[in-house]
């Protein structure tokens, strides 16, 4: 397991050194988004709607969701896609590390650095805007964080899957856009899915995105061990299903890939 562990560490280091500038922009972007969400909440509240949750809960929820989105190493899809298209992936097969696992670990390394930093900065920003901190007891935060990592695992598997599918689709980027939008819409990363009609909420929770997004993020303002366990089980099942599909896809690719496309 040592090479994989090192891959995680190297990517973590990379984020703090080489990718510092890009990461800084992500932080600025998150702060801008929280400011916009805050304005948005004020407008909804001024409209006298009863469906609005309190500002700290609303902003914390969106910060967790946005943090998950902004932590995503989306460039990985393009890198894997290029390796598949050019056939360079064949040279990776002879290495004593598993291609899928290595890419998965590299993605996780990025998440391990970005997620906690964005979360802390987001919470600081919320404090500046509302004067209050977390809407839940801080001792539950590690549990929420653990589930966030599981969500990150699902997102990482998704990226590797889409990247590898380049062998069949040639250009898998459009599918990546759709998956991204599914995360936004079905995962309730724009606004909590409780704002949606009931029938649509049910649809959202039938997909993995409902659990990776809304399921985890809603725990930040409405925590219960029962709910956390339900989210955990759903995430495990969806991760396992996607990992299984990924293994099958990778086996198929090993048979079909041609060097230099």
């Amino acid at each position, binding site marked *: 397991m040592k090479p994989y562990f090192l891959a995680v560490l190297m990517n973590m280091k990379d984020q703090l050194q080489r*990718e510092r*500038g*890009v990461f*800084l*922009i*992500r932080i*600025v*972007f998150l702060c*801008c*988004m929280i*400011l*916009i969400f805050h*304005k*948005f909440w*004020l*407008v*909804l509240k*001024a*409209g006298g*709607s009863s*469906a609005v949750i309190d500002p700290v809960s609303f902003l914390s929820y969106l910060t967790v969701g946005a943090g998950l989105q902004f932590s995503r190493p989306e460039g990985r899809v393009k890198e894997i896609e290029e390796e598949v298209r050019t056939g360079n992936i064949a040279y990776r097969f002879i290495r004593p590390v598993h291609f899928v696992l290595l890419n998965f670990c590299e993605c996780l390394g990025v998440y391990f650095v970005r997620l906690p930093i964005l979360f802390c900065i987001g919470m600081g920003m919320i404090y500046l805007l509302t004067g209050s901190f977390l809407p839940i007891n801080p001792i539950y935060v590690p549990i929420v964080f653990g589930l966030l990592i599981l969500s990150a695992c699902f997102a990482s598997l998704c990226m590797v899957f889409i990247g590898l599918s380049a062998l069949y*689709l*040639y*250009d898998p*980027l*459009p*599918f990546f*856009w*759709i998956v991204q*939008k*599914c995360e*936004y*819409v079905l995962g309730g990363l*724009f*606004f909590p899915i409780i*704002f*949606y*009609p009931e029938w*649509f909420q049910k649809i959202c929770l039938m997909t993995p995105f409902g659990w990776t997004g809304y399921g985890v993020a809603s725990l930040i303002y409405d925590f219960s061990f029962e709910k956390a366990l339900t989210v955990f089980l759903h995430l495990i099942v969806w991760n396992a299903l996607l990992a299984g599909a990924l293994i099958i896809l990778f086996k198929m690719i090993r048979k079909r890939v041609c060097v230099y496309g």
Partner: protein
Amino acid sequence: MDKIIYYQKLIKIGFKQAFALKKVFILRILFMILNNLMLLYAWYLMFLNFPTIHSWTFNDFMFMTGLVILTFSVWPIFFRGIGIHLMRLIENGELDSFLVIPRHVLFNVGCSVCDPSGIGDFITGVLLIFFSGLVSFSNLPLVLCFIFSGICVFLALNILISSLPFFIKNSSDIGERIFFMFFNIAGYPGSIYGGYLKLFFCTFLPIGFISILPVELMHTFSAVTLIYLITASVCFLSFSIFIFSYGLKRYESGNRFNIHY
């Protein structure tokens, strides 16, 4: 006249390149339309819960989104070369072959790449503006003015960001992030911004020219605001071209000559 013919041919070559992979070309267009509609549907569900957001109805939002998407689409269709492509050329010192052509560098690089997904954006943009119910024959010239100013703003932002590598080394990834950050911010209903934030978005960072002022002008027309909108957009574009030309003097060649159109 010969300049127009030259750029026409350049754009034609870009299209031909993109159309070389027919299925990918069509897939990109279709998925981009789907991508945009998914996001709009989420907002539609939101507006079901909150019929007005600071006096903006769903129709206003639809018009704004259509305008943002339509004006944005001009960039991938005609000037895709400006942006990450141009930034990489500057960073790697590969701009030499464009500099020796007796045509403007920006247009040459810009027209050298075409992204078919922009056509999907264009179609969605036109449909959204048309179905928003705000456009009639009498205000069509006004809408064309908005489109013109929107194109100027997006292009100017892109040119400004593309100039970053002249002043900051290895800033292409940062630049790309910043551009998409602006695009994302422009996608929220302009009515949520008020006070200083609105002033900021309508002066220093003119994304309010696309997401705030047009809908306000559709509600209550003001000739002064319209003149300001058009003049400021053109000035912003001129300023960005000036900054690029200034930055070009700092360009360092990598002594690499490539063949291009």
